[in-house]
């Protein structure tokens, strides 16, 4: 039997959840024995080359590209998992949700204290750039999400336990230490 295939992506996130995935330390050797990685920043495969079993999504949807990537993952993965606070709730990026988009763009490109070079006050509008959404959306509002792994980031043990449970079909172990956040 071929090994289960995993794909991962970061949308509007900080890569912290991927860092946490790497925090499984030497168990990564065990992991690559168990699974095969497809599209993922970990191996730098940019496009899906086959149908995957598990997709891990870090980050919520802040722009049109996030939406496309997420929909692509839904199409190519049997099981989709929201990994971490941003994917589940929007997280820190969603702090802009109460602020009009106009103010966000002005602050980022024109009036912000660290903006020095943009003397012509240009707002990025090239057609090649992703389009900003009105707010940051959690992934489950865009596509069906099968599982949610909470945390900022979810601990390495939580990710490891969850992957193991998904791959082996065993029951997921969730000891208190793994899901407590304070």
């Amino acid at each position, binding site marked *: 039997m071929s090994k289960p295939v995993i794909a991962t992506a970061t949308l509007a996130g900080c890569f912290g959840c991927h860092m946490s995935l790497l925090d499984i330390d030497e168990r990564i050797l065990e992991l690559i024995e168990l699974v095969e990685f497809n599209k993922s920043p970990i191996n730098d495969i940019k496009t899906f080359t086959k149908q995957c079993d598990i997709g891990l999504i870090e980050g919520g949807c802040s722009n*049109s590209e996030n939406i496309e990537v997420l929909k692509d993952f839904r199409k190519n993965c049997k099981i989709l998992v929201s990994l971490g606070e941003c994917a589940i709730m929007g997280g820190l990026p969603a702090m802009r949700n109460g602020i009009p988009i106009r103010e966000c763009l002005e602050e980022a490109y024109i009036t912000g204290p660290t903006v020095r070079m943009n003397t012509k006050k240009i707002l990025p509008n090239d057609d090649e750039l992703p*389009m*900003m959404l009105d707010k940051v*959306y959690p992934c489950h509002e865009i596509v*069906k999400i099968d599982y949610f792994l909470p945390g900022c980031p979810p601990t390495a043990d939580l990710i490891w336990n969850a992957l193991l449970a998904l791959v082996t079909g065993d029951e997921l172990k969730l000891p208190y230490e793994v899901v407590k956040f304070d």
Partner: protein
Amino acid sequence: MKEKVQNIVKKFHNDRSRLMDILLDIQKDFNCIPDEAASIVATLLNMSKVDVNQTISFYHFFSKEPVGTYAVYLNNSAVACMMGREEVARAFEEEVGTSFNSVTEDGLIGLWDTSDIGMNDQEPAAIINGIVFTNLTPTRVKEIVIGFREGKDISEMVDKYGDGQNSNELIRSMVNNNIRKKGPVLFSEYEVGMAIRNVANYSPEQTIEIIKNSNIRGRGGAGFPAGLKWEFCCKSGGEEIYLVCNADEGEPGTFKERVILTELPMLLFEGMIIAGYALNAKEGILYLRYEYKYIKDYLEDVLQQLRNLNLLGNNIAGKGGFNFDIRIQLGAGAYVCGEESGLIESMEGKRGEPRNRPPFPVQKGYKNMPTVINNVETLSSVVKIILNSPEWFKAMGTKESAGTKLLSISGDCKHPGIYEIEWGMTINEMLEMVGASSVQAVQVGGPSGVCIDPSQFARSISFEDLPTGGAMIVIGENRDLLKEFVMNYTDFFIEESCGSCGPCRSLTVILRNKLQKIMDGKGVKADIDELYEWGNYMKQVNRCGLGQTAANPILTTIENFRPLYDSLIKTDDDFVSTFNMEKAVADSCKYVGRVPKL
């Protein structure tokens, strides 16, 4: 301004626990609480300004900006909407020339949405500058707005007074009592002062024993045995004990306390005095919801009459050491202050956020002293128990629910109003009594209660079966249950949540959006399942009754009206997204100057 504010603060002895009264007076004098006034108050009371501001921002009837020389607070509860509230609101907007929740440019008229004001039997109703206007129609709205423009005094615009004491010169209100059925406990004839003179012959312990023997349970909704509450409080061993009467009936659909306060205030105050004696309390406080401010002067007068009769004050009924007085504390518009610990916070001049329990109010309540908080109806009933006997009281009602219950019945029925019934009446009997036919559902106990379908109309109104604080709303078969009720009630909880517990603050909104998704025909079965699962979660993770019951309108209709939900969902999909890319990118593309590429 400084002098005016100083005088107000001085009037309340620079006591920061009287912040509510101070702010109420400022709001009245300035038509808002200007920022400068908040600063002055903070300095005088030796508080941080943030503390003053957070109290101001908590209450609906406090405002930092002027609310309009004529401020119209129009009720938007479900029954108001059933009775034509929307037409009245549109008429106001048209005549005034501004939309709701704003003030006209000249500052003359402000229009404001308001949660239930306790007038469900005479909706649509509004509070204008503290005066209640009932049975509003678009035509009447035109006359009222003309009155505003002519600069008329608001009390001149009340065209006729209501029945009973509503025409009393200290009330002069157009509110009607609508007392439809007088029962043997609250509305029976009695001699004023007799019960107080009787208890003066008993010891406080004996008095508590009588109340315990009567099995009377709290009438506010939770149904805790009143005698036991008194006993617990006495055993808490504080230096002082306070008695509080909760007259903050904010549950949409209940208005029984309005009628007791109008017609039987003497009875209520006597009950408070008896409780005060039993608890050995020196001070009683009536927490009166702001919406009933129009009765306050009258109540103050009744208190004075009691003092003149030596039934209130020192050495009551000639008994040395029987000292007890009552003051009235006005609220400022917050449903959650009906929750007893929220009410205590409010009485101390703070945001009405419920406390963690334990300690319970009977252990540490008002000013951290043991405090008994009883409902208006409970305390009023106490008098009759003393005058008759616990056995007389127990002989009425059912085993677990002794005595009678005052119901506020409204909605699709011929005779909305107040009914004093014996516990144990079935819903069918109740519907016949109020002249209701073709009934789709009955909302028992208001939004925080349950919504039941006709198959359950043989159930009885009692703590054993269908408990209620008194609100009964009859929903006719032609009503859109989800839109007119479940959505309205969910919006109500969102508006009234104090925001302290995360799930109550946020999940209510998530549930509302999910409900909207289903109503828009975009829901799937998983959405109903999640509504139900998450709604139940609310019961476990919120601190107070508001948060724990905020999902009840959704939960009980899913339980009792499941086909209604099922008929709205898509059965061939397991997931539907409401995300709309075109809409989501429109603003950002417009602002940066590019054509959306979809």
